């Protein structure tokens, strides 16, 4: 596939037009917002947005890994909820439980991701289907566990500190967490064999297999990582709200996919940069924030979301024409 940037000179060539578009949209949103209210450009507001974006950022990181493979993870809603509920549940089992709360939540997410990965990689079930199914199973397990109500266990102090505290005054911890996870992702994607294999599989799994990559294992690991990150995002969200809730993950599936795709990662896999995902996450968060500041009702927000995603995809997410 030829890049549209091939003939552009200098610094522009290094950047994906999609990433530039996404950053352009962020600036546009901020400028439009500042017409509405001066507060949109204040550091307090921007830091607050960065904090809110971090939760989505952690979840979108896992989603990006899976989308780079040319797959999709629709089990995010209940993986997030499972991570949150299990982390809170572990906290009820004494000091050991409190210490292991976050790892246990992540472990549950990894388990869901492993089921996804085995289904996709070894059983060759389309990822969309198997992740929908595991989402339903995770929901079923959580409904049985909680009895259909929001669980009473509350988040541990560590979860609250990570999600809502600030090690350096003014900069929330969760922003650092996103930065660390993001940096790790950039390193893994760009500098390790695993990352190269992910891009290879996304481009053509058959070719990757023939070049000696254990494609099935890579796919399985990627889904497990995605599940783990979703669950970690859930545990952080539980820390932020100090408890888990039934449908807390529902609001993260569409934004996570949208953030990754708006950041220029090809939904067909094999192409995309983490910088784009960062831009996508911030873009989506700002859009949400501005819509809620303008007191747009939920209905309007859903409509605008859907329209923005379709329009942005039509701009640069189209598949080649059949010839």
């Amino acid at each position, binding site marked *: 596939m030829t890049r549209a940037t091939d003939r552009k000179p200098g610094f522009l060539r290094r950047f994906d037009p999609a990433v530039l578009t996404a950053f352009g949209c962020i600036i546009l949103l901020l400028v439009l917002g500042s017409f509405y209210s001066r507060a949109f450009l204040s550091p307090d507001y921007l830091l607050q947005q960065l904090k809110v974006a971090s939760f989505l950022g952690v979840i979108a990181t896992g989603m990006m890994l899976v989308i780079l493979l040319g797959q*999709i993870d629709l089990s995010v809603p209940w993986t997030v909820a499972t991570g949150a509920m299990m982390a809170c549940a572990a906290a009820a089992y004494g000091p050991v439980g409190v210490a292991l709360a976050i790892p246990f939540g992540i472990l549950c997410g990894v388990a869901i991701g492993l089921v996804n990965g085995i*289904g996709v990689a070894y*059983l*060759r*079930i*389309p990822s*969309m*289907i*198997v992740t*929908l*199914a*595991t*989402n*339903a*199973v*995770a*929901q*079923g*397990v959580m*409904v*049985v566990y909680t*009895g*259909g109500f929001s669980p009473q266990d509350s988040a541990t102090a560590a979860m609250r500190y990570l999600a809502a505290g600030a090690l350096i005054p003014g900069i929330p911890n969760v922003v650092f967490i996103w930065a660390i996870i993001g940096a790790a992702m950039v390193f893994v994607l760009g500098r390790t064999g695993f990352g190269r294999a992910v891009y290879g599989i996304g481009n053509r*799994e*058959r070719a990757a*297999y*023939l070049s000696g990559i254990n*494609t099935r294992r890579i796919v399985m690991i990627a889904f497990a990582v995605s599940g783990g990150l979703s669950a970690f995002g859930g545990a952080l969200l539980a820390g932020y709200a100090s408890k888990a809730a039934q*449908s807390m993950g*529902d609001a993260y*599936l*569409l934004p996570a*996919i*949208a953030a990754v*795709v708006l950041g220029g990662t090809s*939904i*067909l896999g094999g192409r995309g940069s983490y910088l784009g995902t960062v831009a996508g996450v911030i873009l989506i968060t700002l859009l949400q924030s501005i819509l809620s500041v303008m007191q747009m*009702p*939920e*209905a*309007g*927000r*859903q*409509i*605008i*979301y*859907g*329209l923005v*995603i*379709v329009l942005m*995809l*039509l701009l640069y*997410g*189209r*598949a*080649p*024409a*059949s010839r």
Partner: protein
Amino acid sequence: MKDWQYRLAEHRGTLTALFIFVVMFVIYTANHPAGFTANVVQTAANKGVLLAFVAMAQTLVVITAGIDLSIGMIFLLTNCLASWLVVGTPLETAFGVVVVLAVGALCGAINGAIVIYGRLQPIVATIATGAVYFGIALLLRPFPGGSVNENLADALTGRMFGSVPASLVALAAVVLLVWVPFSRSVYGRAAYAAGSSETAAYMSGMPIRRGKFLAYTLAGFVAAIGGLFLTFFTYTGDAAYASGNAYTLFSIAAVVLGGVSLFGGKGSAIGAVFGALAFRTIGDLLFVFDLDPLWQPLFQGLILLVAVSLGAFALFRVRNRLEWFL
């Protein structure tokens, strides 16, 4: 292969679904306190047809190797719209029904246009349009409410000739008037061919774009029929996000149980209808065995997971490992 063997192989998925449904339904009625009575059948039919309509709609898209994750939201949107429009005098009611069906078809056509002419991936495109449709449904009905022409509703959810559930008759009519003509038309064949191998179909000069577009549009239309029936059953419109998602999910389960290949090009809406009825019956089995209803979501999820995993048996037939990677 003899002629009848070939025909049997062609309809194996549909027949398997029919078999599963019959077995499940026999177990269900045998353990039901009231037994096999017209009332039990009517209740089961009324629950089953909603999913059957949505599953039929999903099949239309799945045979083109696509998927419609907005189908549950079209179902909700038409339900909310019907709770405004399908009221009043017979003429007003008829007008309302026509508008509701047209809106459903329009939603499907928008999906089709974005996927086919916009060349976007069906998964992401329909998740996004699903959000839009849900938003519109929420605008129409921020709170559950509304009403419906009760004469029409009672006629279509009651019994005909004393014993046959009217909803089943309506389902059969839709199969005969929408699915059968479509699947036998040139466009229906093009939709199948596009699902089987888009490149080959394109090279053979089949009208794949129009075939796929028609399939998406009819999917919206059939989902709207489902939405109408939901209104007839509940007398209200309700934009419940979880319910829309559940119908999307269950429609995929029903399609898989009905022997329709998710890779496209294989299967029939009739199989999906039996798949839907079987799926509903399996869900209801929990009640006749007096299990806690809390277990129902888990049970349904597990059925779905097992059903989709069954497709993996095809791997044993793969001779060349490269065929793993489609």
